[in-house]
């Protein structure tokens, strides 16, 4: 099995290898979320291809891509507001477990893993921001992704909460899931990513292990030079 996340949009071409954590960084407006949308089927790239497990998934509908094992979260958290936390996760689990009781068992397992167990009967609309971020991940895990793509799952969290999220991501990786993470919080992504790709103005400007990336001149110019204040972006939702 080989993940071939091959993208040729704006000349962006890179691979994601099975089992790794690939970080995607870049200044605001670099096109990170657009890239995610192209991969997950929410946007159709005008040119280029997305390969997943050797198959061309370019232009497939989001639900078809999910069925193939590539699941995403949203930067602006979208809990299913009138469903409980448990039901939120069950919706994800139904993709693999059509029976209600199986989906419920799977969801409960994930709720324990993600630390949402005690809030399982809360409504999606009642959650705090950190819990919403967790729920985004938990719901995606329900669909048992082979490749999980997280869109700024840690932005807007306190340092403690970031630490918890980092632990969660490590746990998910340890269970054999490949992760592709957009992250604005450098402190969060650098220690856990195996490799980093850097996007600037829609182009790939660097690729490599975190230790190399932080030393890369172009990256420092494009991203780090942007100002230290940029590392914590507030979210309204």
């Amino acid at each position, binding site marked *: 099995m080989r993940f071939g996340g091959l993208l040729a949009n704006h000349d962006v071409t890179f691979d994601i290898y099975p089992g790794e954590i690939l970080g995607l960084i870049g200044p605001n407006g670099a096109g990170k979320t657009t890239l995610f949308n192209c991969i*997950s089927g*929410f946007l159709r790239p005008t040119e280029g291809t997305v390969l997943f497990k050797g198959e061309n998934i370019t232009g497939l*509908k*989001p*639900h078809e891509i*999910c*069925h193939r094992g590539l*699941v*995403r*979260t*949203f930067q602006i958290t*979208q*809990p*299913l*507001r*009138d*469903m*409980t936390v448990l*039901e939120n996760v*069950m*919706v*994800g689990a*139904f*993709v693999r477990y*059509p*029976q*209600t*009781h199986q*989906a*419920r068992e799977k969801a*409960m397992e994930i709720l324990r893993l993600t630390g949402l167990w*005690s*809030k*399982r*009967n*809360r*409504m*999606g609309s009642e959650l705090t921001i950190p819990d919403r971020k967790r729920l985004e991940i938990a*719901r*995606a895990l*329900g*669909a048992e992704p082979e490749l999980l793509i997280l869109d700024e799952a840690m932005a807007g969290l306190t340092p403690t909460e970031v630490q918890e999220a980092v632990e969660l991501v490590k746990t998910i990786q340890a269970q054999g899931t490949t992760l592709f993470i957009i992250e604005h919080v450098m402190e969060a992504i650098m220690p856990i990513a195996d490799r980093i790709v850097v996007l600037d103005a829609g182009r790939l400007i660097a690729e490599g292990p975190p230790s190399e990336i932080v030393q890369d001149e172009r990256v420092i110019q494009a991203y780090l030079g942007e100002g230290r204040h940029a590392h914590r972006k507030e979210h309204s939702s």
Partner: protein
Amino acid sequence: MPKISRKTVVTVLLYVGAVVIAPLFSKAPFYRHVLIMVGLYGLLGVAWNIMGGYTGLYSFGQSAFFGIGAYTSTMMLVKAGVSPWIGMLCGGILAAIVAAGVAYPTSRLRGPYFTIASQAFARTFQILMTNWDYVEGAIGIPLPLMPDTWRFMQFKDKIPYHIIIFGLLGIAILVCYYIANSRTGYYFRAIRDSEQVASALGINTVRQRIIAAMLSAFFTAIAGTFYAQYVLYIDPESVTHHALSIEIVMVAAVGGAGTIWGPVLGAAILMPISQYARAALGGAGRGIDLIIYGVIIMVIALVRPTGILGFFQRERTIEGEGGDDVDTTITAGTGSDDAVRGALGQS
């Protein structure tokens, strides 16, 4: 559902009991007529609810499917002497097909856009029916009088109608209950809350929306056939009118959209109001019931958009949080959760 819970059995028994006992309180035809209207609008509300309450598609055009049901069975009876039971099934299937045909192109529309489109569809349908000579246009069709038989679904007494409509309502509720607790029901609610999330989680939203529309149209059309057999006269004004679509939405929204029993409760509250208002005030008081409906619906939308059942549900959520952290009660806890859900509906 792997096995039937005790709560379900109790609910079914309570329902059957209530249906049997209700008409015994009075022999007055009017009283029994009101009960039948509760059943009819309960059925229409439950059908609307599959789309409106669960899937978040507020159709204001259900009258078209009601009309398809009424006209299909009536035309089959008038032209070919086919039993209305078969006509009922055919009408339901035809309505479901039409619903799929409408749901597919409108599958990108949400919120008020969908509502307006559904209204435009139903109004177009009414205009076409009014101008279609084969179905007698605006003149309407009196149903041929048949002997008092189950085969032709015609009775002088009101009790058989009572049994039929509450039987049909019971079936609709069971189907709704089954759907609500299955994957499809969860998918419907996910679409209601966010189509984007739903599709990211592998849900084919277009397909699910079509399924919801078909189910809803099927039961609405069945109610249409029943109405034709009960009133024995149909015309576009009575079975495809916009006001009917309005009443259907009201019934579901007042009782509680997105809950299993909400529409039934809504019908039980609103139908006596409208029937008694019409009877008491006659022609001069036309519209009094709808004035009251209008006020009720505004108040409900402002105070609690989830409908009257919403008050009970709020308590459920709070109650549910009580024993949350006790791991040992998980299994039992979940089981009873289900039972409560079954009784009060979903969400």
